[in-house]
Structures are given as structure tokens and as C-alpha cells.
């Protein structure tokens, strides 16, 4: 059951990204281009997601456990270390260069041709290698 819900959640996430237009790197770069031709759409995507999330997340995590698991797996770290600055800074540069982050890379995987496949593979390798080096 939990696997079915993981699949449905992922599917909905893919639909949401596609509907919002955030699978289009041009729209993402348009949002980041605040000094030029600005496309504010991404702000409303975040706003919509946060509207739902910020109301329901606290309510759900108050419960003893989720529906199909023995407990919640929530990040416990909340300190500001160098990684929480350096990591997002590097990610932001890559995101700004190409207009793709991990979600849209996967949602586009079967629909946007070879460049997306190459991007996703290199991204995954870089992720795993970085994680190995970090620990």
C-alpha cells in the first residue's frame, strides 16, 4: 500500500510540475531574471504549494504515525553549517545556468529528448559521488 501511495504521490508531483509550467527551463530562468524580462509564475507555484503544505504539514506530523508506516522520517538537522550555504549556492548556480532542478529533470525524462537524459544521469552521478566524498 505504501508503495502504491509513493507511486501516486510521485505521479501527482509530475502532473503538478507539468501543469505549473516549471518543467519548461525557459520559465524557470524567466523567474530568475528579475532585472530583465521577469516571469513571476514560479512565485505562485511556490505560493500554492506552501499554502497547502504549511496548513497540512503541521497537522499531519502531530499524528503518532503515518497511514502505512511505523513512523515519520523527518529531517532533524536544523543548524546552519557551511554545507547549507555552499550546497544551495552551487545548486543555485547550476539551476540558473540551465533552468532545471531535480524534479523537472525527472518529469521531463521521457518527453524532452536526449539533453534531459544526459542532464539527469550526470546529475545523479554527481550527487552520489559528492555524497561519498562528503562522508
Amino acid at each position, binding site marked *: 500500500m*505504501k508503495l502504491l501511495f*509513493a*507511486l501516486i*504521490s*510521485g505521479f*501527482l*508531483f*509530475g502532473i*503538478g510540475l*507539468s*501543469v505549473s*509550467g*516549471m518543467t*519548461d*527551463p525557459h520559465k524557470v530562468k524567466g523567474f530568475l*531574471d528579475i532585472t530583465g*524580462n*521577469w*516571469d513571476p*509564475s514560479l512565485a*505562485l*507555484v*511556490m*505560493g500554492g*504549494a506552501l499554502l497547502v503544505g*504549511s496548513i*497540512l*504539514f503541521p497537522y*499531519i*506530523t502531530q499524528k503518532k504515525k*503515518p497511514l502505512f*508506516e511505523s513512523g*515519520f522520517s*523527518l*529531517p532533524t538537522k*536544523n543548524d*546552519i553549517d557551511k554545507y*547549507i550555504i555552499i*550546497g*544551495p549556492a*552551487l*545548486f*543555485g*548556480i547550476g*539551476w*540558473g*545556468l*540551465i*533552468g532545471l*532542478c*531535480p524534479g523537472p529533470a525527472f518529469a521531463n525524462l521521457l518527453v*524532452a*529528448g*536526449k539533453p534531459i537524459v544526459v542532464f539527469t544521469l550526470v546529475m545523479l552521478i*554527481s*550527487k*552520489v*559521488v*559528492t*555524497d561519498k566524498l562528503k562522508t
Partner: protein
Amino acid sequence: MNIINFTPVPALIGGLILGLASVLLLISNGKIAGISGIAKGMFNSPDKAWRMFFIVGLILGGFGYHTLTSEELKTENILNIDLKLIIAAILVGSGTALGNGCTSGHGICGLSRRTKRSFVATCVFMAFGMLTVYLEKLF
């Protein structure tokens, strides 16, 4: 600054769906819908199954939407396999691994949980993304 290409209605509806997807994963599996963390864990975490199901769902969601709507794929217009694409992929991969999250994990779920770490992370990647686009236009 000019405002162009603004699509408020699909953006808001898409955002609400993203929020619901995150809520559904949390209430069913107790997991955070952070795409970078879920993807990374497919390779180096003990619980790989739900991660694979989520990512397969994500891929099929994008595929299904585009197949049903047969919307024109604009991604092909600006993406080529070149050095820029490779560098960006390396930076996105290593940056999200170091910072433990991306737009979804920090930007949606982390902020929904009101954590300081995710707030800092979101501000930093937004700022560096904007700076990168600004600098790219100069050169």
C-alpha cells in the same frame, strides 16, 4: 524590469497539486517529498523501494501529462548537450547533495515545516540562481 510570460492560473493550480502530492507522501509514507534526497537514496539508502516507486511515478506523471495534452515541448528549444549542460548538471547534483535538498525538499517541504535550515537554503539558491542569470546576460 518588464513582466512577461506570466501564467498565474496554471502556476497556482500546479503549485496546489505539488502541495497535495507532498502532503500525500507525508501522510501515507511519512516521508518528505524532496526530489534530490529521494533520488540520491535510490542508490545509497537501505529503503530503496518507495523511492523508486515515487521517481517512476514522477517520470510517468510528466510523461502522462504531456501525452494527454500533447503540449508543445519547449524544453528542446533551449537545451543542447554542451559543456554548459554538463557543468549545470554537476553543480545541481553536488549542490543538492551537500545542501541535502533542492527546490522541493527545502523550498516546499522545508518551508512548510518552517525550518530555519530550509529557509536559509531557499534564500541562498534563489539568490545564486538570480545572480547567475544576471551574470550570464552580461557576458
